[in-house]
């Protein structure tokens, strides 16, 4: 490993020093490098007798709004050039790792935030214990809970809980990475890497759907792309909009794959003084005005296979219904709607939709959020990664738990699970491009940074002699600037006790 801590002290690497030569041990080639030259890789060089990393550091910078224009995160306008004077945070992206050696992390960088001396320990973690949680916004059937999720026939994870309007997958994890066959591990690693890098992934669920998912994009289920989340199930939709329909229709049927709602029978209709009008829909009645399984799942109305809405009407009872009855039908996404008036034979006849109903149809659509796939990377930072931060690793864990130390991945905010260890989750779309890599284990490589007050760092037994100033690092290395995610808290800020003034 290139011992960057030696650089920190500004002293020569005394290993294999021979007439100005430095032997690089970053890889098996073991280049002997003359002063002022770089090794075969151009990544490490001999600068003043010390082995020095020449690769650009990836930094994220906070830039003030300039003439009303903000450079959007992840957009191409950002050319990677450093912005002078802008607050700079050095990320772990491409920083390398000192694993498995118990050495200080590749970079330990001091900076100042609002008069507080901060330190950021920058590293790249090799995570065998990692996985991803995928949230797929859909009500379509993806697969039964615990059903295997497969890529190329290998199990890479399973279906977990159904959430409100979404289906969850749990992919990766150490059991698939290293607990199964070599191929299972490789395919699992590749699946996670692709999804974490923002790429599309095709997968199948045993006894369920064929999926194509990509972070931040609409999911594709059995070949059809999900556009919008429903506003709620048919029953919930009635609950939300009953009052707005009242007086404009005598019956409202909200078609949905899960629960189809019938207003006049529904609790909400009764509350408005409505009586059942004798229009019976197909399916299995759950509670008054709520019906399961009015049709098969599909790509028609409200996630059913219905394209002709009247087909879900089983019967119209002449004892309750009357000629001129106004029937309004709508799906739970507002994508489909129809208006009918019963003729003298009590047959529904299409009629122009009254404007107040059209307004509500539009409102249903407005209340449906775009259906997306969310990918959360989840990993445990343990072992020697912590030793790169402090001589007493448990103190780092405690410091994170006590919210003295901020953990980030490529500068992006993470959620640290309560309880033992440092188990974190991060939305991969908030991390800069090219944050992830993989190694043969197989395991994922991801950037991780720990930021805390310098005095707290000293108190926890940090590698104080390896601390360098941020401007010193910035001056010595080639830097590549990536846009800091505007919605994220500034990664270099302390989590507590910002002192102001003297």
């Amino acid at each position, binding site marked *: *490993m290139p011992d960057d801590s030696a650089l920190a002290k500004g002293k020569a690497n005394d290993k294999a020093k021979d007439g100005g*030569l430095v032997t690089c*041990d*970053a*890889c*098996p*080639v*073991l*280049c*002997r*490098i*003359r002063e002022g*030259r770089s*090794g*075969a*890789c*151009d990544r490490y060089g001999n600068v003043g007798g010390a082995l020095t990393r020449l690769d650009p550091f990836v930094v994220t910078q906070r830039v003030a709004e300039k003439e009303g224009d903000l450079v959007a995160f992840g957009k191409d306008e950002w050319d990677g050039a450093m912005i002078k004077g802008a607050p700079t945070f050095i990320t772990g992206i491409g920083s*390398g*790792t000192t*694993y*498995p050696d118990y050495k200080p992390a590749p970079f330990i960088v001091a900076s100042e935030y609002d008069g507080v001396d901060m330190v950021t320990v920058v590293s790249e973690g*090799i995570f*065998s214990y990692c996985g991803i949680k995928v949230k797929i916004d859909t009500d379509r059937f993806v697969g039964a809970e615990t059903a295997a999720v497969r*890529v*190329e026939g290998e199990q890479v994870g399973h279906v977990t809980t159904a959430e409100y309007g979404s289906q969850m997958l749990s992919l990766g994890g150490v059991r698939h990475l*290293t607990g199964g066959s070599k191929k299972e591990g*490789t*395919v699992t690693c*590749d699946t996670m*890497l*692709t999804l974490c*890098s*923002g*790429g*599309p992934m*095709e997968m199948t669920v045993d006894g369920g759907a064929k999926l194509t998912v990509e972070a931040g994009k609409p999911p594709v289920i059995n070949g059809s792309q999900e556009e919008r989340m429903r506003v709620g199930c048919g029953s919930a939709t009635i609950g939300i909009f009953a009052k707005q329909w009242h007086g404009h229709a005598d019956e409202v049927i909200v078609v949905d794959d899960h629960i189809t709602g019938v207003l006049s029978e529904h609790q909400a209709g009764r509350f408005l003084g409505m009586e059942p009008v004798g229009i019976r829909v197909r399916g299995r009645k759950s509670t008054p005005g709520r019906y399961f399984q009015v049709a098969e799942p599909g790509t028609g109305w409200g996630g059913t296979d219905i394209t002709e809405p009247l087909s879900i009407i089983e019967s119209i009872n002449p004892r309750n219904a009357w000629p001129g009855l106004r029937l309004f039908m709508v799906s739970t996404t507002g994508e489909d709607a129809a208006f009918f008036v019963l003729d003298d034979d009590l047959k529904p006849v299409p009629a122009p939709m009254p404007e107040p109903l059209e307004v509500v149809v539009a409102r249903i659509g407005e209340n449906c959020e775009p259906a997306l796939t969310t990918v959360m990377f989840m990993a445990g930072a343990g*072992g020697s990664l912590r030793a790169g931060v402090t001589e007493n690793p448990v103190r780092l864990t405690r410091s994170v738990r006590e919210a003295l130390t901020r953990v980030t991945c490529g500068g992006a905010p993470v959620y640290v699970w309560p309880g033992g260890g440092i188990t974190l989750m991060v939305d991969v779309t908030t991390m800069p*491009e*090219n944050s*992830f*890599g*993989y*190694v*043969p*284990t197989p*395991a994922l*490589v991801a950037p991780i940074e720990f930021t805390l007050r310098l005095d707290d760092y000293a108190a926890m037994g940090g590698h104080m002699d390896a601390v360098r100033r941020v401007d010193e690092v910035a001056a010595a290395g080639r830097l590549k600037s990536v846009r800091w995610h505007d919605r994220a808290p500034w990664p270099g800020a302390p989590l507590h006790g910002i002192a102001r003034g003297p």
Partner: protein
Amino acid sequence: MSVTVPFGAPPLGAVLPGGNRRHFQHGPIDLVVEAFGPGHEVGRAYKQAWARFETVLGELVGELPVLRAPLKARGPALKGATARRMAAACRLHGQVFVTPMAAVAGAVADEVLAALVAGRTLEKAYVNDGGDIALHLTPGAAFDAGMVSLATAPSAAGTIAIDHASPVRGIATSGWRGRSLSRGIADSVTVLARNAAEADVAATLIANAVDADHPRIERVPARELDPDSDLGERAVTVAVGVLPDASVIEALAAGAAAAEAMAADGRIVAAHLVLQGGTRTVGALAAALEDRTRPDRTVSRGAGPDQRRRAWTT
């Protein structure tokens, strides 16, 4: 975590922005890999390529002393598949001084490409090892290769289409500004050949041959720059000032003569030589290249240090 690497960082893989290309890196080897075809075939191809890549550097390091020495008629047999590709490419050039290391980048590209395509159904694929590129093509598929001079801004000076019918499956570029040391003064020599290893060693040798005597050319013994260089005490180029036209023409002619000899017996398919805005094109694709390249002697002057990277688009 149970990575067992004897020393140094393990090989690292990543998905490049856009989601299609892969980046494999281990020590000095940097590969950009891309396969085109049905998604599941591409996915499998990448895994095969990665599995092969994992051990390539270790195998080469194990035979480094032999690979850094000139080939002998009865030398020790090389064990590694990549090492054998290197030696085979060098043997084409008979008695000229060259060590297998001249073909290392191209041979790694060929080796990983072979693993990438084995048993897979792909339209086309490439492995780009820092500018030395191995190609895979099927009927109907083609690559547009755009070439840039090492010394000029990275805008393509010319493009050529390589299709299935073409014998070309390897492209390599060499020059004195490149990562490897050169004995000549070429800004760039780009070679099209049957595979990347053959292109690599030919580009090295032709770039060595692009040479002239002039006080504005600075040279030092290779060992002064790299104590382990396979070139030993031989002089290598470290700076080339602006040369008079006569020297440029003379140097390009010497290089072109070497290239012509290689094209004549099929060791290369074509070569494109660039020196301070002057160009020469040799071989089967000469006409195609000449049509699209516009020699402009002002272009190469004042090249900055950032422009030395070989760049090809495919």
